[in-house]
Each structure stands twice: as structure tokens, then as C-alpha cells.
């Protein structure tokens, strides 16, 4: 018996192709397209686990059937199709794959050598023309350790040196020689922007604008004014072109500009804005600015003061992506509290996300969520694990524009699934199996003989049994 039916698999394909066609406008469809195609594998029946579905629901003693890379059925006493692998998950917890909305894996890889510090194009305060994917080193061993922590999708962002840092990219956490082989098919890019201390410090220290917070805001606004003109020129051009006739024949296309392509994409709603911003007052300024120019902020990242404006964020449909306990490393993080995540969640329609921004944190986002959950509970908030699970699955998926395809255990979604040895909200919880699109990418009982990263190949042994 199937308990949950939401999106038919066919819809997923349709939605994906729709997403791709929307990209055609001033700019061609993604010129660096995803080449990721999940391997075709036998069906998998995960039998009898406790499901935290990612939607806020807990289902005890429930089966999940994976077929064709998608979640085909959820229920009790499901029948294994012919040739299916049956996994006994009794006593285990089954969750959607974890999604990290803020990572610099690949662009600030391990080892952190000077020749691979490729995350900040800190040569001008606005570099909307750069794409993080062009900096990604797929051999970063951090992808593997993140996978072992249950991360199946992640957004790689440019750093925060710049007011507008460039485009981020959403990846599936799968082995590949190229980043195109990891690229989440059809996922929109993200636009990385940064408030506050970083841009004004980086450029102010070179005696260049911006050197103040007001300089920051003037810098963004000038860009949006240009981007609106650019978008209007292209809209006019395309309207005349499609009207046809003699005028269309003689039309000259506006000059293409990579920087303005990206900003126009944000104005059209095709590129969700992912904005690094710590302080409550600055987030409020950014919300006003988004209304001034007509773009949508998907998520405030870091947002150590999001709890102060939890209602305002929820009313504006903006998520906050936060750490569980970081504070005090710089002035704008001085008011960070451990209840931040749970307070953002507690606002009606609040959207709380736990992010890492760290090659260490991404390995244990379940524990970061656990810390936040425990603090929320101690503050009197009713946050059971199934609710906290949303912070690291469906909420980031939605903020990335992939929430219709992954981020929860629902029929028709991608089979991005983790089996844990216990409920994941514990220091002691470990992943046992991690599936991406139905393919078993990590199995703790059968660790790979060789590391996934070429960099670690032939280096001193990292794994294996205790000597």
C-alpha cells in the first residue's frame, strides 16, 4: 500500500525541461550543460526503517521502493520487484539526502594550497560575470567526506569578498572527472551577493569603494539600475524580433554582457539570490532593495541575527541559512545565539536552513541540526526530529529551486536517500548507506578500496581497520 503520492515521475521530466527552456532569452541555454546521467541500477527496496521524510513527517516501520532512480512507492509490506536489492532497515532511520545550500568545496579545496584558492574573484567589487563552477576542482576530497556525512546535493558558491560575487551552481555529490558530470540537471544557478564587513574590508583596505556599508548599498543599486536597462533593451529587441516584418529584419541585437546577463536573470526570477548577510538591520535594507528593483531574495546566508527579524523574513518568504553555534569571529557575528535556527523556524511560515560554509561542518549537518533542535526544545519550542529534518533537506531544496525534485522522501522524487545507524540527531549517528538517484554511492560496510579523489590515490593509507 502506498501512503504518499504527490508528483508523478513524468512530471519531473517535464518540469526539468521547462526549467531549461526558460533560460533562453538574452542568454543561450546553459552553455556548460550537465552531463550527469545516473547509472541504471536494479530496484532497491529499503525495508522497515523509521522514515523522517523531510516534510515534517515521521513514518515508523515503513518501506521505500526505488525504481529507475526515483522513489516509486512508500508504504508497508511493499512487494520487491523482480531483481530488486532488498535492504533491511529495521532499527535504522531513513532520511532524504542532506542538502547543503552553502559550500565552497572544489573552489576552496583540500589541500588549501595557494594555487587552488579559486573561490573569490576579489579584483573588483562586482563580478556577476564569474561562475563558481569554472573554479571547481572535482578531485577535492571534501566531496567524499561530505557524502559520508549524507550530503547528496550541494550548492557551490563564490566567496563573499564581493558585493556581487557571481553565480553559484548546484551539484549532485557523485564522482566525476568534470564538474559538468556533477551538475544537478536543470537546477537554476544562484546569484551570490554579500552584505556587511567583507566587501567593505576587502576594497576599503585598498582605498577603493566600497569602504562603508552605505558604499556597499550604493554599489548594489548602481548595478541593478544598469541591469534593468539591459533587460529592457533585450525585452524590446525580442518583442520587435517576434513581431516580425521589415523592422525585425534590420534589428541589431544589444551587446551581450556576462555580468548583466546574470543580474537580468535574477530580475527575471530565473536565478535565485543567495545573499550573505549577518545583521538584522542589513537584511531589512536588502529586503527593501529587492523591492526597489524587483528581484527575489531566496535566502539570507549566515544570518546570525535572523532570529531578531524571524517574522519579517517569514512574511517576505525568505529563508535563513544558519550555523548552529558560530559567533564572535567578527563583529557582525557578535549576536549569534544557539537558538537562531529554531526561532526562525518558529515564526509562522518560517523557513530555517542549516548550512555549513565549511568542509568540516558539511560532514555532520545532522549534528548541527541536532544542536539547534536541542536548544529550541530547551527554549520551550515543540521541535521533534522530524521537524528539524526539514532544515537540512526540503527547506534548502526549495530555496535552491529543486524542491520539486529532491529534498524529501515522496513518491516521484529523486531517490536521494540516507540510511542511518540510528536517529541522525546525535554525536554517534553515522550513515550506513547513501543513495544518489537510486545509486548506492557510499556503503559504510563496504568502503571503497581506493579513495574517490585522484589526489589521495597512492598516498599514505587513510582508511582500513584499526592496526
Amino acid at each position, binding site marked *: 500500500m502506498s501512503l504518499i503520492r504527490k508528483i508523478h515521475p513524468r512530471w519531473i521530466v517535464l518540469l526539468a525541461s521547462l526549467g531549461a527552456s526558460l533560460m533562453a532569452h538574452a542568454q543561450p541555454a546553459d552553455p556548460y550543460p550537465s552531463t550527469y546521467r545516473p547509472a541504471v541500477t536494479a530496484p532497491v527496496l529499503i525495508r522497515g526503517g523509521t522514515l523522517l521524510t523531510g516534510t515534517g513527517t515521521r513514518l515508523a516501520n515503513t518501506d521505500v521502493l526505488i525504481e529507475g532512480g526515483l522513489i516509486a512507492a512508500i508504504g508497508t509490506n511493499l512487494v520487491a520487484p523482480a531483481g530488486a536489492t532488498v535492504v533491511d532497515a529495521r532499527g535504522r532511520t531513513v532520511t532524504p539526502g542532506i542538502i547543503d545550500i552553502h559550500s565552497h568545496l572544489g573552489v576552496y579545496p583540500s589541500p588549501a594550497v595557494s594555487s587552488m584558492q579559486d573561490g573569490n574573484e576579489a579584483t573588483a567589487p562586482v563580478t556577476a560575470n564569474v561562475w563558481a563552477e569554472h573554479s571547481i576542482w572535482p578531485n577535492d576530497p571534501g566531496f567524499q567526506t561530505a557524502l559520508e556525512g549524507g550530503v547528496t546535493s550541494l550548492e557551490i558558491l563564490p566567496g563573499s569578498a564581493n558585493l556581487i560575487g557571481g553565480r553559484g551552481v548546484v551539484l549532485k555529490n557523485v564522482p566525476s572527472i568534470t564538474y559538468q558530470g556533477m551538475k544537478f540537471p536543470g537546477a537554476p544557478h544562484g546569484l551570490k551577493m554579500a552584505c556587511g564587513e567583507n566587501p567593505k574590508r576587502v576594497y576599503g583596505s585598498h582605498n577603493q569603494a566600497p569602504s562603508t556599508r552605505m558604499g556597499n548599498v550604493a554599489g548594489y543599486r548602481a548595478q541593478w539600475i544598469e541591469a534593468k536597462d539591459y533587460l529592457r533593451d533585450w525585452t524590446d529587441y525580442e518583442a520587435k524580433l517576434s513581431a516580425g516584418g521589415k523592422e525585425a529584419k534590420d534589428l541589431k541585437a544589444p551587446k551581450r554582457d556576462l555580468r548583466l546577463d546574470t543580474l537580468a536573470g535574477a530580475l527575471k526570477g530565473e536565478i535565485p539570490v543567495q545573499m550573505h548577510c549577518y545583521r538584522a538591520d542589513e537584511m531589512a535594507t536588502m529586503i527593501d532593495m529587492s523591492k526597489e528593483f524587483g528581484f527575489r531574495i531566496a535566502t539570507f546566508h549566515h544570518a546570525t541575527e535572523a532570529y531578531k527579524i524571524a517574522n519579517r523574513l517569514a512574511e517576505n518568504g525568505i529563508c535563513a541559512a544558519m550555523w548552529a553555534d558560530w559567533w564572535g569571529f567578527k*563583529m557582525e557575528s557578535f549576536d549569534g545565539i544557539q537558538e537562531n535556527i529554531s526561532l526562525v523556524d518558529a515564526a509562522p511560515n518560517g523557513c530555517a536552513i542549516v548550512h555549513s560554509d565549511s568542509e568540516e561542518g558539511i560532514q555532520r549537518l545532522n549534528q548541527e541540526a541536532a*544542536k539547534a533542535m536541542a536548544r529550541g526544545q530547551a527554549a520551550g519550542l515543540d521541535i521533534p526530529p522530524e521537524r528539524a529534518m526539514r532544515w537540512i533537506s526540503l527547506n534548502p531544496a526549495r530555496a535552491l529551486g529543486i524542491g520539486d525534485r529532491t529534498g524529501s522522501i515522496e513518491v516521484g522524487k529523486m531517490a536521494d536517500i540516507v540510511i542511518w545507524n540510528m536517529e541522525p540527531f546525535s554525536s554517534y549517528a553515522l550513515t550506513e548507506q547513501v543513495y544518489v538517484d537510486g545509486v548506492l554511492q557510499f556503503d559504510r560496510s563496504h568502503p571503497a578500496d581506493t579513495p574517490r579523489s585522484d589526489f589521495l590515490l597512492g598516498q599514505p593509507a587513510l582508511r582500513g581497520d584499526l592496526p
Partner: protein
Amino acid sequence: MKSIFGAGAALAFSLAASAGSTLYQHGRIATGTGPVLDDASVLIVDGRIRGIGREISAPAGAEVIDLHGRWVTPALFGGIGSMGVVEVSAERTTNDGGLNLGNVRPEFDPALAFNPDSLPIQIARVEGVGFALLAPEPGTHASGGNVIDGLADVVTLDGNAPRGPSALVVEMGREGASLAGDNRAASFLLLSDAFEEARHPPRAGEPRRLTDAGRATLQQVLSGRMPVLFKVDRAADIRAVLRFSSQQKLRAIIAGGAEAWRVGKDLAAAHVPVVIDPLEALPADFDRIATTLENAARLEHAGVTVAFSLRSNAPHEARKLRQAAGNAVAHGMSWEKAFCAITQVPAAAFGAAPLGTLTVGEKAHLVVWSGDPLNVTSLVEAQWLDGEPQRLTSRQTALRDRYLDKLRRGEAR
């Protein structure tokens, strides 16, 4: 729709009084010196621990608190770093963590910058942290940094002043190289020179690098009265430090130790303790290629004495160290050794015993936890430091309460 807001948080216990007697009973007691005691009691009289065990009865007039299986532990170690000398890491005016004097000053003691009112102390204290090792951060070569960082001090989070230096801190490996002409071998050269000058003080008119006080500090190290904390990660560098320490007759402690598991036998044979960050899993640089989450477990298996510290020196992160210990357990270390790695072992290694233990006759430095202290979901429910019960409030709980109240009214905007 059901409201997420429940009844406000209620403190599990009333605040015990420092004068008089308090009996915590029916708890799980981890003393740091032996096995965890189930269904046991701790008796505190006038701020001192007067009994630990099953058969403790309450003196007349004692406040008796039933723990219902909650945990009692010593106050925890907060790691090696800038506890008490930093408010906001990136604000230079609030950060006395480093030193760029431009000459070699082994006698430099950061304790004189220690501020017991520092906010990171206030915030770590309500999270069960009771002591830390205050160690200077390396300077830079350009501004006169040296492989000898200076002295480190055990600091307590109870408002008291530091107790005097407990180790000399030295940078080796890649960091040492950056302070020694860009060659890690020269770190040993600079160190040898300094020790030589301490052994044979220059006569009048002879060249000298050290002050009288600097030579006196190094003489304390050479006499074995004070250990040297070598910050080093690469297996080959650790071996070189062990050889150097043996030649110079130094008491070595290794900090960093990302590849220490590869030289576990040597470390155990030399009785050299190792302080590692058990959350490290990646080859963060070429000194740490063989980093593994099993470092702690493999060192335990080799018989090495292990303590934990996060790699970060930020006192803001001290409260996270118990999570790191829990992860060491998840990756194969015994619970008991992981617990001692954030209690008894660092206290003993840095000469601060009986801190890090629950010891009858000593002042209470203890924490009552809602559950296993190495689990991230367990929280502090009561804390005693230096025989005084502590209020579990901080600037951060004040911020929480202010905005939780606004949020309940829908006014967090």
C-alpha cells in the same frame, strides 16, 4: 494548527547554595579517574566534594536533588587557544592572541592579558567548560614572529587569575618553516641555538639572542620542570620532534598531530601525550595528507595518551569540544578515553590536576548534564566552579529571551 510555542523552558533545578550541603543522587557519575558510576551520588559540603558513590547519605539539612539518571562530570577542558584574551577574533583591538615583538621572547606570558570578564569565557562557562590552555598564536615572519611562541597557561573560567605558566609553545612543521627562513629544518636550528644559549649563557660582550628571563624560561624546560608543546602534524616531523626532544632531554607534548596515528608506537614508547582535533578528516595541507577520523581510535589502540582540542584557537568554539569527543567515539575510540581527553588528560598534561576530575576533598568544579555529555543533544542543567554554583545565564541567553518574547507576540521584525 498547533502552536510551536510550548510553555517556556523551566530550569530543572533550583540553584544550589554554595554554603551548606547539596546531595545529587541517582545520577551517572563520570569522575574522569575511573569507570562511570551508575545510580550514584555526589555530596558537596561548603563547596567541596565530600563523597562520591552509591552509599552516600545526606547530612542533616542538606538539599537533596534527584538526578533521575542525569549525568555529573568534572567541568570540561575548552581546548588550546585564546581563552580570555579575545573578544571578537577579527577586531585587532580586542585580540591579544598573537605576538609580533620582533625578537625571541620565550618568557612571554599571555596570562597578563587574561581577562576573566571576557564574553567568550562567560559563554563557554554556561556550557560546561571549566578550564582551557591559554597559548599564544604564532606571529608572522614579516612582523618578527619566532618558532618559540612563548608560554602557555592553564586558565579557569571561574573568575580566578591564571596559575602560572605550564608549557613552552613551539611552532614546527609548515608554520615553523614560515618563521624560520621558509625551511622546516631551520626550526630545529633556531631552537637548538636558543637552548644552547640557555645552557651556556653568553659572557659580557658575547652576542646574545635571549634576555636573562628568556634563558631562565628555557632552563626550566631543560630541567624537565616544564614541558614543550610542539605544534606539528606531519608524521616525519613528529618523528623529528621526538628525536630532538630525546637529544635535548625535553618533555614533549604534541599538538595538532593530524598524522600522529602513523607514529603511534613511537609516541607511546616515548610517553609523549598528543593533543588532536578528532573532527579532522581531510588533507587540509601537505602536512596533513594522512588525516583520518580514526586518528583518536588508532592512537588509543597504540597506547598513546590522547587529549582533544579543536584546531581553531577561537575561545568562541570551546563549547564544541565535547561534540568532537563524541565523534571520536563514533569513529572507534572508547567512550572513557574520549571523555578523559577533554577532562583528566589535558589537566594532568598541563600540570593542573585535580582539575578535570571529581575528587573527594577538592572544590567542586562539576557539571550536571541532561544526558551523555558527549552527545550534542545533551545540555548543561547545573554547573559548579571553584566550589560555587553558577548561574546559567549569559549575554546569549539574554538575547534569546528578548527575541523569543518578541517572536511569541509576532513582533520579531
